[in-house]
């Protein structure tokens, strides 16, 4: 069946065409979409920027506590006993506590022939759940010659600061991971040499970590003693800044490593602000769509007699609503495309001018931004079409 031409009936629907509310709604929609896309892109940028320094894992904060060393308790055993650990674990604001177990045997590390470096070091072990970066090969079994190590990224930074003064080469994370470290372990019951390899770097834990299985085995085999009480304990908590937690720790005279917690909090606050911006964008989009629906209602109300007569003459409400809705599709495309263009421009400037030395960022929009833009166009068209359809069926 040949379809009627919309061209001939178009003038009948133009009453109220120049309505200011239509233009307000388009501008509002543009601003809302821009805010939404910007918030999403900024959120992604922040994720990329702080990805390597996050202290949060699975929604928890991880902090390390030690006993405060004062003149009064100096010389006493300031390690955490199993009773201390149980008390910590019983607190409602602490979701887990894991001791940082130390070696009881001596360890000398050498870096091979290429880097003439040897030093007494200490090793520690921690439950893997409390470590931020745990590669799958971070485990050890007896007879395994290579011991995987997780190295503090702060230690590497310190090493790179003093290395040139000692004639040692500075190392990148990649190079350090390729260096085979000789580990000579010697205790009361014997000595053994292992080869150590850095498999990951930790931002959270300032230590040289080995798998717990290695630590337990070496303490027992080389020193003949079980792993000793720890002087440092890691706590898993929902909020490291919770007043209850801080009061409890102060009361117990425990010292907290707050620096990284503060960083984690800043990131959270920043993400909160961005999320707020995104929610604001969603609200503006919703308001703009609402305003546009008012405009459509006004248009239909003003053209009511003409629309009613068209329906009486045999024009299908289904066809009419599609024709009316279709007229605004190019406008939606333009509005969202402009917002997308501005977001792209701002992201480009942000990366090229402000964050020019951050290779983890991209000058181009994340693909998810394009998807969001597409969804917004689809949403606008669908809302629009449903509204017109409802209004037309209402008057037919």
């Amino acid at each position, binding site marked *: *069946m*040949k379809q*009627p*031409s919309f061209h*001939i*009936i178009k*003038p*009948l629907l133009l009453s109220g065409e120049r309505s200011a509310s239509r233009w307000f709604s388009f501008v509002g929609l543009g601003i809302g979409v821009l805010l939404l896309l910007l918030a999403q892109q900024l959120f992604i940028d922040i994720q990329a920027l702080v990805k390597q320094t996050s202290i949060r894992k699975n929604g928890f904060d991880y902090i390390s506590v030690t006993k405060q060393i004062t003149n009064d308790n100096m010389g006493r055993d300031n390690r955490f006993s199993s009773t201390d650990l149980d008390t910590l674990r019983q607190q409602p604001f602490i979701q887990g506590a894991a001791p940082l177990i130390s070696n009881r045997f001596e360890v000398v590390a050498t870096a091979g022939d290429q880097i003439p470096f040897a030093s007494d070091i200490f090793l520690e072990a921690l439950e893997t759940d409390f470590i931020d970066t745990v590669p799958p090969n971070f485990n050890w079994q007896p007879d395994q010659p290579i011991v995987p190590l997780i190295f503090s990224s702060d230690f590497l930074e310190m090493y790179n600061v003093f290395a040139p003064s000692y004639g040692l080469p500075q190392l990148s994370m990649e190079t350090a991971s390729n260096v085979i470290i000789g580990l000579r372990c010697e205790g009361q019951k014997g000595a053994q040499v292992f080869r150590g390899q850095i498999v990951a770097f930790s931002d959270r834990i300032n230590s040289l970590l080995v798998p717990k299985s290695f630590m337990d085995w070496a303490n027992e085999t080389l020193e003949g003693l079980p792993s000793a009480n720890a002087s440092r304990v890691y706590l898993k908590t929902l909020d490291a800044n919770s007043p209850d937690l801080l009061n409890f720790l102060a009361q117990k005279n425990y010292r907290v490593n707050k620096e990284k917690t503060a960083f984690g909090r800043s990131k959270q606050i920043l993400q909160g602000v961005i999320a707020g911006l995104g929610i604001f964008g969603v609200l503006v989009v919703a308001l703009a769509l609402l305003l546009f629906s008012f405009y459509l209602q006004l248009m239909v109300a003003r053209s009511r007699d*003409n629309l009613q*007569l*068209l*329906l*009486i*003459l*045999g*024009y*299908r*409400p*289904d066809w009419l609503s599609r024709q009316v809705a279709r007229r605004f599709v190019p406008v939606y495309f333009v509005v969202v495309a402009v917002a997308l263009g501005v977001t792209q421009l701002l992201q480009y400037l942000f990366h090229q001018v402000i964050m020019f030395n951050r290779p983890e960022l991209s000058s181009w929009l994340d693909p998810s931004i394009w998807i969001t833009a597409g969804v917004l166009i689809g949403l606008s068209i669908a809302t629009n079409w449903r509204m017109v359809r409802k209004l037309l*069926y209402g008057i*037919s």
Partner: protein
Amino acid sequence: MLQIDRIQPSFFEASACTHSELWLQRIDVEPGERIQIQAPSGSGKTSLTHFLYGIRKEYVGNIRYDQVDARSMDADAWADLRREKLAIVFQDMRLFAEPTLRTNFEIKRQLTHQHPETVIEQWSRRLGIDHRLDTPAKLCSYGEQQRASIIRALLQPFCWLLLDEPFSHLDDANAKKAMDLILEESERQGAAVLLADLEIVPQYPRTRLLRLLA
């Protein structure tokens, strides 16, 4: 076939319909029939036309088009029926006021393309309104609007043509021309015509007369 099955306006007292030849009667309208419905003012003539055209529903009883109950039809089904099978000349003409007569015709003609564009000129000339084709409808006289309303109704395919006082603003000569055009086109399409008027229209070659209030 159109079946008017014992309908009665719901706003009428039952006693007002007892002597009617249409209200509360079963009427089957066969193809090609020419029915005259004669009804004095206030007897529900326009209401009947609107019931049959589906723009008012305050009646009891049933109206069926090709066995389909009119009440069960949705807005799109009514649009299909009005586009393909059911034509009407309203008593109050109902033209688009701002557009010209030509545009008014095109709005109807382009729905089905039943007739070529040239028919508009041809029929307008026959009914004497060709000089007003490019005049906005609101500037035309009632007589001109009524003739335009008749032409618009004929610009579609139809099985049933409803006429509600179609000649009320026309002199006898113009009414005759309009009647001839209506009969010619309805015969060509094999359609039934239902003409409702205050009085019996003598020039209408009716096959049946129904008095709304006998």
